[in-house]
């Protein structure tokens, strides 16, 4: 018989939700093990290379579903390693949303006011910079100037980027070689390890079962470090508390697969998935007009032609984040860069009739790639996604050695979502086609469905057991001791980039997890400072702790 290992707390996934939980519980004195599906890469490993098998494909994961595909991180640090580090807080009205359920979808205890102290804790832990116009790249500057020309406002976006180290290489999605991007590899995770947390990369969790003493047994497979289609040995670890943070595309799949051993899951597990209302538009910029109309010019007499230069999103237009507008009419528009590989295939030819994601005209626009400006819309979608029965292993049938898999998510947008996208498309066109500045076309949804890098809500918190899988302290209904702290807990689309809100909710969940661990005999306390030892955030949340520690 193989002996099963034991720990106090087992964390599944090492992205924002997982890293934050692991740090606080380890710093509070618990034994913590983190199982992470992907490899453990650091600055030196992050290549500037599109070759399959370079860090670009090792570190992220693309899961094609029916109507929606998800791009996410697959490595220690999760999405923080591949993300663009935009870290805005969600606007106030978001927390009042009803979506399709006819009542407020967030728990009564969560609003922008009650979340702000938790946002502050995150901002103290992950250094976030308010970028200024000197940090704004050509692409962001062009977007800002076009917004201004159209009578709109535009803001440099707060980002977790150390400006002194950033070389504007635009390889953020392959992991930051220069450690300018403040991923979790530079804050929560090393602090967790310093407090004794153990990270095990290339361990993919399959399911969870119960132990005789009221705890849980987590079943994993060890993955090959180069060809993720190959699996090695399997194993189990017993824990008193399980924190699931495998991301909104994987967490519900683990729970669905565990139904056979844990018993029925709440109805909302694997339902109400949101792609954060994302949609992308490509504008093909008319260089002459940029010079004439906007008066922009850069070195060597160029006007723009700078698509390759820079970093992720640096400038967003928040004019439509207006709480007085009706739901499904509010959205933000953010300038963005997507590299070749996954960043061109879905772009369509402006003005084309019929599909144009491939062929002669598509090649012509590829030749003008330097003059592309990509605009990212985040609308209010309607939580339409549902996960079908889980695949045999993991959360997708992996097709290629890395990166590409076929998952079970089905996403069929409702008329509200389609209309919201259409409104946002029209707004982008109005701003960028004005005075011939550009020609714009939205990315097609016909090839791999809608495309999200912001999966949310597949296992959400809420007050209503019928529409939320977790209570308002992130505990899985009917399965005490199992907590979910990742993007799947967020109830709906946020109209801005989600990592800041995912992290704030994870920070907010910690007092409840600590209390549950103590009830189960784990000698752990709440109250660790930020990973660098700062304590002002801790003071800010102190008044909120008692209500979160009580059941």
């Amino acid at each position: 018989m193989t002996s099963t290992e034991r720990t106090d707390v087992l964390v599944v996934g090492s992205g924002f939700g997982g890293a934050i939980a692991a740090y606080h519980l380890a710093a509070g004195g618990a034994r913590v093990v983190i199982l992470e599906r992907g490899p453990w890469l650091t600055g030196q490993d992050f290549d500037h290379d599109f070759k399959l098998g370079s860090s670009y494909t090792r570190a992220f994961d693309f899961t094609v579903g029916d109507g929606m595909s998800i791009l996410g991180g697959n490595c220690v640090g999760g999405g923080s390693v591949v993300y663009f580090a935009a870290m805005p807080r969600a606007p106030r009205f978001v927390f009042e949303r009803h979506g399709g359920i006819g009542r407020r979808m967030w728990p009564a205890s969560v609003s922008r006011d009650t979340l702000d102290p938790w946002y502050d804790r995150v901002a103290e832990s992950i250094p976030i910079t308010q970028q200024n116009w000197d940090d704004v790249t050509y692409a962001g500057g062009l977007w800002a100037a076009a917004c201004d020309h159209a009578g709109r406002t535009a803001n440099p976006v707060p980002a977790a980027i150390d400006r002194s180290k950033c070389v504007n290489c635009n390889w953020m999605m392959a992991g930051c070689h220069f450690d300018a991007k403040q991923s979790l590899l530079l804050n929560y995770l090393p602090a967790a390890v310093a407090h004794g947390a153990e990270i095990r990369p290339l361990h993919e969790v399959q399911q969870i079962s119960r132990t005789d003493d009221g705890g849980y047994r987590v079943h994993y497979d060890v993955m090959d470090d180069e060809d993720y289609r190959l699996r090695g040995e399997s194993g189990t670890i017993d824990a008193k508390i399980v924190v699931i943070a495998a991301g909104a595309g994987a967490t519900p799949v683990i729970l669905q697969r565990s139904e056979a051993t844990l018993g029925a899951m709440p109805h909302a597990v694997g339902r109400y998935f949101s792609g954060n209302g994302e949609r992308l538009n490509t504008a093909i910029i008319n260089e002459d007009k940029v010079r004439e109309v906007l008066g922009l010019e850069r070195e060597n007499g160029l006007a723009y032609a700078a698509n390759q230069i820079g970093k992720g999103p640096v400038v967003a237009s928040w004019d439509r984040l207006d709480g007085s507008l009706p739901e499904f009419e509010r959205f933000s528009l953010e300038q963005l860069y997507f590299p070749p590989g996954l960043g061109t295939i879905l772009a369509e030819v402006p003005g084309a009739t019929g599909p144009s994601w491939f062929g002669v005209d598509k090649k012509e626009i590829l030749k003008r790639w330097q003059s592309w400006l990509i605009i990212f819309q985040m609308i209010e979608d309607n939580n339409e996604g549902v996960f079908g029965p889980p695949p045999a292993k993991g959360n997708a049938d992996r097709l290629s050695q890395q990166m590409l898999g076929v998952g079970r998510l089905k996403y069929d947008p409702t008329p509200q979502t389609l209309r919201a996208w259409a409104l946002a498309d029209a707004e982008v066109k109005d701003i960028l086609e004005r005075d011939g500045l550009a020609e714009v076309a939205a990315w097609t949804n016909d090839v791999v469905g809608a495309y999200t890098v912001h999966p949310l809500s597949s296992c959400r918190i809420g007050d209503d057991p019928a529409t939320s899988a977790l209570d308002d302290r992130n505990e899985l209904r009917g399965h005490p001791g199992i907590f979910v702290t990742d993007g799947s807990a967020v109830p709906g689309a946020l109209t801005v980039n989600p990592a800041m809100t995912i992290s704030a909710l994870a920070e907010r969940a910690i007092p409840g997890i600590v209390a549950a661990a103590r009830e189960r005999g784990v000698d752990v306390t709440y109250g660790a400072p930020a990973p660098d030892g700062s304590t002002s955030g801790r003071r800010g949340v102190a008044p909120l702790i008692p209500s979160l520690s009580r059941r």
Partner: protein
Amino acid sequence: MRPPSTDVDDTRTMTLEAFADTIVPGEKRSPDDRAIAGATTGGGAVQAGALELLGWDATGLTEGLDGFATALTGHATAYALEHGLDLDPAVPPFVSLAFEHRTALVRRLTTPGHPEKELWVSLALFCNMAFDSAAHMSTADAIAQGHPGLLAMGIEKPDADGRWRFPNFSYGRPLARLHPDTTPTGSPS
């Protein structure tokens, strides 16, 4: 003109080349090139290495390539029949189709609702990747060797250490008014 092809591999190669060329079209390699339709100037997916990429098992498609080619032959034959087109027996049926028919057929196969859509989309995805990112070779090498896709897109050369850095990256001046409701953290209120 080439003699009729009897070689299975040749049939497969030509068929897949013609598919790749439909995704990112290129210029004929020689006047008697049949796989590449010659719909545009400059190299397309084929010259960019689509077949090399598809032949690398890292893509997960390699074992299925025979099946893709056979299926494409079947679809092309049916398409020709449906449209009353004569196929040239000297080349595989898909290769025999004129470029606009190849395009129409690929559109049909990749339209939502087509039962084989996922397969054809994944094949198209890698054909596009061969052109826009040379995913079968190191990017710095691809640029140094004049990869037609990366060159056509104007991807800049890296520094000597194979990394990109852009010391000039910003217009460096305010270009819009900030949203009036921005909070001190720089977020929407």
